């Protein structure tokens, strides 16, 4: 199936429900690793929105990428609760472990404030991380 057909299929699967834009964007990102310019334009055409409107939404959310990045991603929470539990001290080691191979991104709260520092890889959450645990996590990503 061509890229255009897959995109059309994703749009068709969600179009018609109330507020279809975000579910479509999530599905496109999951399928292609990003929502690029062409995908934005095609989604806009399908939902009868302007290209600018779709771009505004895509660029607003950190989770949506406008170009694909094949590297694995590790999200480290650096919000207040995790900071209070020592997350900031883990950053230098995490950055060193990630290097160029892993994309280490900052998030603000994964909803596990009492058991931080926390990180996320894919759909898996990791709590009570110390330096060794975090470096191992990044190494395995």
């Amino acid at each position: 199936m061509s890229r255009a057909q897959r995109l059309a299929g994703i749009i068709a699967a969600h179009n018609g429900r109330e507020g279809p834009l975000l579910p479509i964007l999530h599905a496109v990102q999951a399928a292609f690793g990003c929502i690029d310019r062409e995908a934005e334009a095609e989604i806009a055409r399908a939902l009868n929105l302007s290209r600018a409107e779709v771009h505004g939404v895509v660029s607003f959310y950190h989770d949506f990428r406008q170009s694909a990045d094949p590297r694995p991603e590790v999200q480290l929470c650096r919000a207040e609760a995790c900071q209070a539990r020592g997350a900031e001290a883990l950053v230098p080691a995490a950055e060193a472990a990630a290097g160029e191979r892993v994309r280490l991104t900052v998030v603000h709260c994964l909803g596990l404030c009492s058991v931080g520092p926390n990180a996320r890889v894919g759909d898996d959450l990791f709590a009570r991380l110390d330096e060794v645990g975090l470096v191992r996590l990044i190494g395995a990503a």
Partner: protein
Amino acid sequence: MGYERQPDFGTPATGSPDTVTLRIDGRDVTVPAGVSVMRAAALAGSAIPRLCATDNLSAFGSCRLCLVEVEGMKGTPASCTTPVAEGMVVRTRTQRLEKLRRGVMELYISDHPLDCLTCSANGDCELQDQAAAVGLRDVRYGHAGENHLGLSVDRSNPYFAFDPAKCVVCSRCVRACDEVQGTFALTIAGRGFASTVSAGQAGDDFLGSECVSCGACVQACPTAALQEKTVEDIGKPERAVVTTCAYCGVGCTFRAEMRGQQLVRMVPWKDGKANRGHSCVKGRFAWGYANHRDRITSPMIREAVDRPWREVSWDEALSFAAGRLKAIKARYGARALGGITSSRCTNEETFLVQKLVRAGFGTNNVDTCARVCHSPTGYGLKTTFGASAGTQDFDSVMQADVIIVMGANPTDAHPVFASRMKRRLRQGARLIVIDPRRIDLVRSPHIEAAHHLALQPGTNVAVLTAMAHVVVTEGLTDEDFIRERCEWDAYQDWAGFVSDARHSPEALAAVTRVPAETVRAAARLYATGGNSAIYYGLGVTEHSQGSSTVMAIANLAMATGNIGRAGVGVNPLRGQNNVQGSCDMGSFPHELSGYRHISDASVRALFEQDWGVALDPEPGLRIPNMLDAAIDGSFRAIYIQGEDILQSDPDTAHVAAGLAAMDCVIVHDLFLNETAAYAHVFLPGSTFLEKDGTFTNAERRIQLVRKVMEPANGPDGQGLADWQVTQALANAMGLGWNYTHPCEIMDEIARLTPAFAGVSHARLEEAGSLQWPVNDACPAGLPIMHAEGFVRGPDGKGKGRFVVTDYVPTDEKTGPRYPLLLTTGRILSQYNVGTQTRRTANVVWHDEDLLEIHPSDAENRGIRTGDRVRLASRKGETTLRAEITDRVAPGVVYTTFHHPGTQANVVTTEFSDWATNCPEYKVTAVQVTLSNGPTQWQEDYAGRAAGARRIAAAEPGE
């Protein structure tokens, strides 16, 4: 008026008749219910600081400068988003508020260049004003931190620049594009501190985005982030004059902002009743033609059209012209002379031209370009309703529930009205589009037509009759309305006619190619959807059955009771700024001003007495008949004011032959237009910026045009406005006219025309604008016609008349040699034959006419987008580039007619409306084939036109 900004009350009015009294800073204030605290304070004359609020956009509440304290409410609510309530106590100036505001402003200014002295908005900047208003004295954060300074300026749009460094991300531009214009071309990209205004997507600039350059964002911008390039180049204006746009029939009111005699910018006027503060790319920006180097500012004459032009004095040109006219009249009689009035000129100028022809030349050979556009509207609406005009004002669309757009493309041809319509559609009104082509309104962001009847060109009457069939046979008529207001016998005849099974959608689908179910659904929606309004354009009138189509529309509206109140009606979208006015002023050969027939002796007597001459009781010749008569040799001289008939009229070769056969062609225009190639006398014209007068728009609204600069066609103070030139020509013929100002001409019009009896420049000055009729019965004019009843017949009390409109297929048929149907239209950035807009930067959007062709028709001809193709009809052929698109149906091709190099009218035919001779531009059988170069006509034409434009070098002085 000096140059002060129009008052801005921060948030929109509610229009509520109820009032609320509240206390603001110790003063009791009574305001309309539902307004914001910000607006209430502004109405009371105090100004709450603000940046993101402006009164043509709904409140947004993002800038946090307009915070107030309200007793009984927690915190400091934003005054723009807080509605007033009875007994509310508001404080706008407390120490706490001042400190908050100063803190907010400090943050704004910490990321804003401090180059006020050299900034193009210096002295005209809301950020500057608000910094002063909150008393900002220093910025504790410095300017060294993260910022947006030094980002590159987007100069891609020819008329304005976007400097992100000066942007405060108030979103006014984004909201103006969404709410006012309805294009949604802008967004805020990113979030938080990284938020920036983005036109289109990443990688787009303004020109590459969906932006239509209407200027609403520039007008909304509180800083110099979005700024007109003319303001950058020239500087801040020093005075402003309110005047009326000279492009389309919407009739937008603008402030011409001036510096001395130099126009700095045109800004839409919020109090303009036609445009309500909005504009399009033409009126807002495309006025550079007024000073284009091609403009001719000296009178010119030549003995024969193969000679070069000779620049002469006004006196010499006028006596040359008058001499030829008098000689022709003496030899061939008055009926060998004629004139064409201009829908681009003022009512006063038009009136004078027809007076010159009738009273001076002594003939009724006067016609106007409405002949080729809306003459069927005049005929059709007069026959059915009794008045040759649209029934509504533009505001009416905001109360429509169902809108039919037929043979019109408002987003391109009437963009400011289209924005109103789109606003109403976004509020939930339903749309039916009847057009062979998928125009933007069929589907564009946030707008989608409920039904698109993509009919075969030339089958308008069949589609409307089929809709009427559904309305009558399914019992959807408004019988009370018909019995009370319409002629019952005529209705019954009509109802019987449309009910015939051969007029059912099923029977007619074979010719219209519209599925019967779609026609039935559209008819039911129109008849039962609430307030239903019909808006139509030249796709209705420019057909062999144009008048029938107009009457079929009127029938449908009467049958469903959709006439005589707000939200309904029959509304022609007029092409030219003053086409309504030029028709009103007696420009047709058979009618004196106010649509009174020339054969009516009592009407004629009125004019004869006033003008002191005897008038010919016989109607004169229409434009095509003048050309025919010229070829026969009985018509010898013509005075053409502001119209390029060679390019705009059908069957170019025939027009050229007619002009070439005349002994005296006088062209009165801004440019040596295509028609001037056949002229003997050229009288330089004046632009709408250089004259006083009035234009009448599509809603019958008479608006003042005010002179903002001296005419360029003479030394300072000696240039002549067009009405002065016509008067000078009349006087050269010995008529002895002595008007000193157009207001005197309007007084004469009012004296001689019942519908204009109450109109004068003084009244217009006072009222802003008036919708005719303005007389004893309607002293304040009439926004909505036929509210009490129709106005047919001599007494104006006759009932509405249903007219049987039998579908007669046009003689222009496809066949093996010419298998495709060509239809024509316009594009947003260009206007008519492009005389003006081709001489502006608007050419960046459209620099050539393209032929739209369906992929299947293109494929079996081997045509790809961008290929040069030959477009041939039995009349002629031309070449242009193809664009493959499914906007047109298979079997239909489409092009625009803006460029003389294409000359789309070389291929259009001599067929015309049976009642009014309005040409059938919209249907021509053609063949399209690949081509490798321009046609012989195009090559010859380019050479001929260049030759005809030669101007002899001035002789060296002694």
